[in-house]
């Protein structure tokens, strides 16, 4: 027993260290914070952003005398985020991480590997809580004048809270790996399983928002009634997640011992289930995932086909993205998720908003609503958000890795190859913008299809400019030497420039709004499109002139 625990402890320590080293936030040599790490600054900004946002919401909730709405809602959001995060990482950590091959030949039992992998994900979730949950809950405590015991309970709850979600998601993953036998391709399986789970979660979210903000119940009711009703509904939803309400009750100082006992019981049952299923299924799946040979003897005639040079090159770009699960998850997955999320939120929120502004107290807002250049810029800004997480162009050259030299030896001009490399991001963003605009058109018919089409056209022009600049950044500073695919994005400084570009885009949209605010909408849109076309033309011209110098770093062989 002691040696088992020692194995689990050592393995967990190893995995956690490995994970932290790859994040590059702590310098492994000096043991100090690496201030050059972009991730460190992203976390700092997030930390302050969340602190500000939560203190604003809590102070409002306290002012209206309903602080518990924040607590119940916040814990629900935290649970959903932990579940999404666990879904995203667990398949890779449990089955496909590179270290498994090096561990399997050691005298360590599969269940010990499983538990240490579980501890790794749990630790990741604790890091997540540290940034997203600790400060808001402490602010809640100070705003509600809680005693010192609240803060102690808060820490205990945060330690216990992610256990259940991690165990349940882990169990579901192991179970799905067993049941979905048809997918012998592990790459595809990794993608599909997490895809299904996240989609299920997003659609549940849509239903939950629709349920919470059901306008029919709130019409002609006073604010107090509405808030009480919303709180009631959140608690009802929280009941579906067994660990939320007991945690919230502990933090609200209600029946502390009983709720702790509930939490212990829930987690104990979850752990037994996880270990039982893991013991039965994990090793076999682990071996199949790592050593499953995909080579087949081919008895049928192979497919030899001819395509146009350009089409073949573009197909190659899409294949490079789609055949590699890491590229797929890093580049395409977030765009699909965000598109679905924005569509779902639009479907859930617009009717609720429409209902809300029908109330008498919002008469001024209702009468002030009109479609103008500001609305166009807001919609374009929303479409930019999906571009924020589209890493297709910013990794277009780095993705090639050892293949990069092929670009230089092919008898295809460097300019054309650059254009072809832009196609995946542009195509993805067009699909995403098309889907979001279709939902907006359906939800807000007042805008009119002609304007929706104009916005679609403007978004395509913006996408072309963005993709062009991002590809250019990656061409000038490519990361061609990598061992594992995830390194490209994880340690990429270019990613930070992508965020800067999006911020710049939003500022540009604000500038456009100010510039055309007092002009006729149709003329403004025409000028707007003209400006974007000019930018595309200038960028093309500059690239064509300096293409040889820009390809200088593509020299791997």
């Amino acid at each position: 027993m002691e040696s088992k625990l020692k194995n689990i402890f050592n393995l967990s320590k190893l995995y956690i260290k490995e994970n932290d080293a790859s994040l590059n936030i702590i310098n492994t040599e000096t043991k100090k914070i690496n201030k050059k790490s972009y991730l460190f600054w992203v976390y700092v900004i997030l930390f302050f952003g969340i602190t500000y946002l939560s203190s604003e919401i809590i102070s409002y909730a306290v002012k209206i005398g309903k602080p518990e709405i924040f607590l119940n809602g916040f814990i629900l959001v935290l649970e959903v985020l932990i579940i999404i995060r666990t879904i995203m990482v667990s398949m890779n950590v449990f089955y496909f991480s590179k270290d498994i091959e090096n561990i399997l030949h050691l005298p360590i039992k599969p269940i010990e590997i499983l538990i240490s992998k579980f501890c790794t994900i749990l630790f990741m979730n604790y890091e997540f809580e540290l940034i997203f949950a600790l400060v808001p809950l402490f602010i809640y405590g100070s705003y509600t004048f809680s005693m010192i015991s609240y803060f102690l309970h808060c820490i205990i709850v945060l330690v216990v809270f992610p256990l259940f979600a991690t165990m349940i998601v882990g169990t579901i993953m192991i179970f799905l790996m067993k049941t979905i036998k048809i997918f012998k391709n592990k790459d595809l399986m990794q993608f599909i399983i997490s895809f299904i789970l996240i989609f299920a979660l997003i659609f549940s979210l849509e239903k939950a928002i629709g349920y919470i903000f059901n306008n029919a119940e709130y019409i002609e009711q006073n604010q107090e009634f509405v808030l009480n009703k919303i709180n009631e509904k959140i608690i009802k939803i929280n009941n579906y997640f067994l660990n939320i309400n007991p945690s919230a009750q502990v933090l609200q100082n209600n029946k502390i011992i009983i709720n702790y006992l509930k939490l212990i019981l829930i987690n104990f049952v979850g752990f037994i289930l996880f270990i039982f299923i893991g013991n039965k299924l994990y090793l076999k799946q682990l071996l199949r995932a790592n050593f499953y040979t995909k080579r087949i003897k081919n008895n049928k005639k192979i497919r030899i086909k001819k395509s146009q040079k350009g089409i073949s090159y573009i197909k190659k770009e899409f294949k490079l993205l789609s055949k590699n699960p890491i590229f797929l998850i890093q580049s395409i997955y977030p765009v699909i998720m965000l598109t679905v999320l924005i569509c779902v939120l639009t479907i859930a929120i617009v009717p609720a908003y429409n209902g809300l502004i029908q109330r008498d107290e919002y008469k001024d807002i209702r009468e002030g609503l009109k479609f103008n250049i500001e609305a166009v810029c807001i919609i374009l800004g929303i479409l930019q958000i999906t571009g924020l997480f589209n890493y297709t162009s910013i990794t277009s050259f780095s993705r090639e890795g050892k293949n990069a030299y092929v670009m230089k030896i092919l008898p295809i001009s460097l300019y054309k190859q650059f254009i072809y490399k832009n196609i995946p991001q542009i195509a993805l963003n067009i699909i995403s913008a098309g889907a979001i605009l279709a939902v907006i058109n359906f939800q807000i018919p007042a805008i009119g299809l002609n304007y929706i089409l104009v916005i679609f056209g403007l978004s395509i022009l913006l996408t072309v400019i963005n993709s062009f600049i991002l590809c250019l950044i990656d061409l000038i500073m490519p990361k061609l030497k990598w061992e594992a695919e995830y390194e490209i994005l994880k340690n990429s400084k270019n990613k930070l420039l992508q965020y800067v570009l999006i911020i710049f885009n939003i500022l540009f949209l604000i500038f456009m709004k100010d510039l055309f605010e007092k002009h006729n909408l149709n003329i403004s849109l025409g000028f707007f499109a003209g400006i974007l076309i000019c930018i595309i033309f200038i960028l093309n011209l500059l690239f064509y002139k300096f293409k040889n110098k820009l390809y200088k770093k593509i020299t791997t062989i």
Partner: protein
Amino acid sequence: MIKIQNVSKSYKKGTKVIENIDLEIKNGEIFGFIGQNGAGKTTTIKMMTGILEIDEGDIFIDGKSITNEPIEAKKNIGLVPDSPDIFLKFKGIEYLNFIADCYNVSKEERTQKIEKLAKEFEIYDELDNKIESYSHGMRQKIVIIGVLLHNPQNWILDEPITGLDPKSSYDLKTLMKEHASQGKTVFFSTHILEIAEKLCDRIAIINKGKIVFVGTLDELRKIYGEENSLEQIFLGIIGE
């Protein structure tokens, strides 16, 4: 024909890694480019194929400058790199189709060549599998088939024998001889002297970025002593 004209290259200002190289590789010739690790072999090959910019001088592939007419020059080159780990997620046949498309190889021609070469190299049955599942030798073979698909006038190989089993190594050497016998150029780098001895019509020895010998092996022996082995001569030339 490949003509390297007074070519120099430096990665850092003031430090030339290639210094005033002049070489001419004629049609129908197998030319060995010999040097120890870090001598400048791969840098030269990178410049010959347009991967690296040339600082001074120029390289002509069948009369086309790789600097001024890169597309035309590249149509006449087939490069086999020292590491064949490319397009690992692609199936062998997908890679070959892509390369054939880039060089405008007709469907009939590619079908005939893929079948012939893949069967000769004994990887025909593996073409529908991903390249990542191939062994090093098989990866090398798929790259070689890709290069031979468009029947390039000039075949450039960087350390081609490394990692190949005896049978594949023999097959590759036979292919190189066949290619040269059709009046085409084969240029390959190596540090295995025995291969150069058995295969090359002429060799060039490169040391610290400079060409220290160009000629046939007989000429080499005449200059540096016939009683010495090739290995001793080579070590003598590079000053070890």
